[in-house]
């Protein structure tokens, strides 16, 4: 055992990941990617987001933390929203191109049209307040009200109302 480990200073960098962290990664990776993918609509970008989220968790939190899963879900949604917004800032062409990579359709014209629609929808999602956008991302990635409440630090009883408001705001934003 390394001296640093003996002193309780944690695992030495470069010596592999702690088993508990690897277990957590295996258990939650697909879900973290799915949440990020729902937001950015680009599988490669979603995997990049998931990598950043797990690195961030690894730096700051013990793998055994009881809040690990909700933390990862919330972080996936928020990090993906940040990526989405910075993509929108770079311009519409970049945004459409990112989504197009992910739009696998045999007909190129149809793929282009779908990519454009998906990109516009994402732009609308990015314009919503953070909490509303995160609520939609988590809910439409299949999380239960209980899981959303834990991830966003909200009361489970208020999720339904907040979600409906977020959906209304989203519809308005899309049709703007």
């Amino acid at each position, binding site marked *: 055992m390394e001296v640093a480990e003996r002193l309780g200073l*944690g695992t030495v960098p470069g010596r592999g990941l702690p088993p508990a*962290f690897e277990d957590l990664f295996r258990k939650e990776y697909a879900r973290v990617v799915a949440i990020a993918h729902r937001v950015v609509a680009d599988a490669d970008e979603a995997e990049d987001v998931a990598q950043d989220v797990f690195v961030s968790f690894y730096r700051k939190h013990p793998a055994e933390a009881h809040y690990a899963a909700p933390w990862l879900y919330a972080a996936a949604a928020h990090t993906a929203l940040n990526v989405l917004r910075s993509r929108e800032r770079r311009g519409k062409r970049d945004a459409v191109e990112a989504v197009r990579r992910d739009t696998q359709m045999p007909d190129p014209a149809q793929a282009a049209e779908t990519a454009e629609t998906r990109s516009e929808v994402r732009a609308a999602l990015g314009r919503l307040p953070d909490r509303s956008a995160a609520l*939609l991302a988590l809910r*439409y990635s299949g999380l239960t009200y209980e899981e959303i409440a834990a991830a966003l*630090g*909200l*009361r489970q009883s208020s999720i339904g109302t907040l979600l409906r408001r977020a959906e209304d705001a989203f519809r308005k934003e899309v049709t703007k």
Partner: protein
Amino acid sequence: MSDIEEMLSVSEPKTDTERALARLRARVDAERIAPVSRGLSAPRRVAVNIWVRGLAAAATVALVATLLTVSGLAETILTIFEPKQLVAVPITSTDLNSAASFGAYGTLTWTEQPKPYDVPDIRTAARESGMTVLTPSNLPQGVGAPRYGVMPKTTATFTFSAAKTTQAAAAQKRTPPPMPANIDGSKLFITGGPAVVAFYTDATATTGATGATGASGASPFSGMPKLIVAQGKPPVVQSDGVTVDQLQSYLLAQPGISPQLAAQIRAIKDPSSTLPVPIPVDMATSKKVTVQGVEGIFVGDSTGLGSAVIWQKDGIVYGVAGTLTEQQVLAVANSLH
């Protein structure tokens, strides 16, 4: 499929978890990323815990201290305590640990329990609290979006009981002074709130949810919000006959109250309109500051983790606290409008 589900639909992502894990291992290795260090992070966690526990204990002492200041004109039947100003009362951890909880002197019955809850936005917070909710125009960098919680008006009745006091003292092998006959069975009617609390997340963290504590009370996160802005109606205490002098003489003579704390409380010049703000001296320092044109109390956490300012204006007590510097906290407080 709902319209939103359709709008947000994406192709099914194909993930290769083992390949992704290998990528993460390589990155952690290449960038020499260290995991959370238990040894190094412990003091911060302990400090935060002490701070939070200190505040909880301080709240109990605040109630005792507030009740000690129940004032009024002698011989009146209803005595009203309605604070117009604040005063810092330094308390030590010995005071916190040795002072008997208020429950040792009688029974507290809630008529309206303190039940804080989340509200979706500031307008709902204003409507449900009946107050104009102030917001800061100046937010330091790194402070994210706010989330609002409302604490409705809370009322409670406290009934002094000599029998209960004797019992509690016996359990702790203490000999308290006998409770005067006119205090035994007398009642205090306490009203607090409503209050509104805005929790601002840490925008520099990867998640906006890291610090959600407090009003929601259900957060699984161990951290604190970056900034808290609170406002509420101060507590009002009415008595069915006992005067402040009688209560002070009795309660300040209790074995748990240090002579220093007793002297601090006795020194309050106008107890009927002064709200004592307990400052845990082992953990924090305090000083008078001017905020929003009135005198307030600045509290600095001596571990360097955070600071707070509290003041009262136009019948409302305001507080701004956060893991920020004194300058930042005061700038936020002065920008409330």
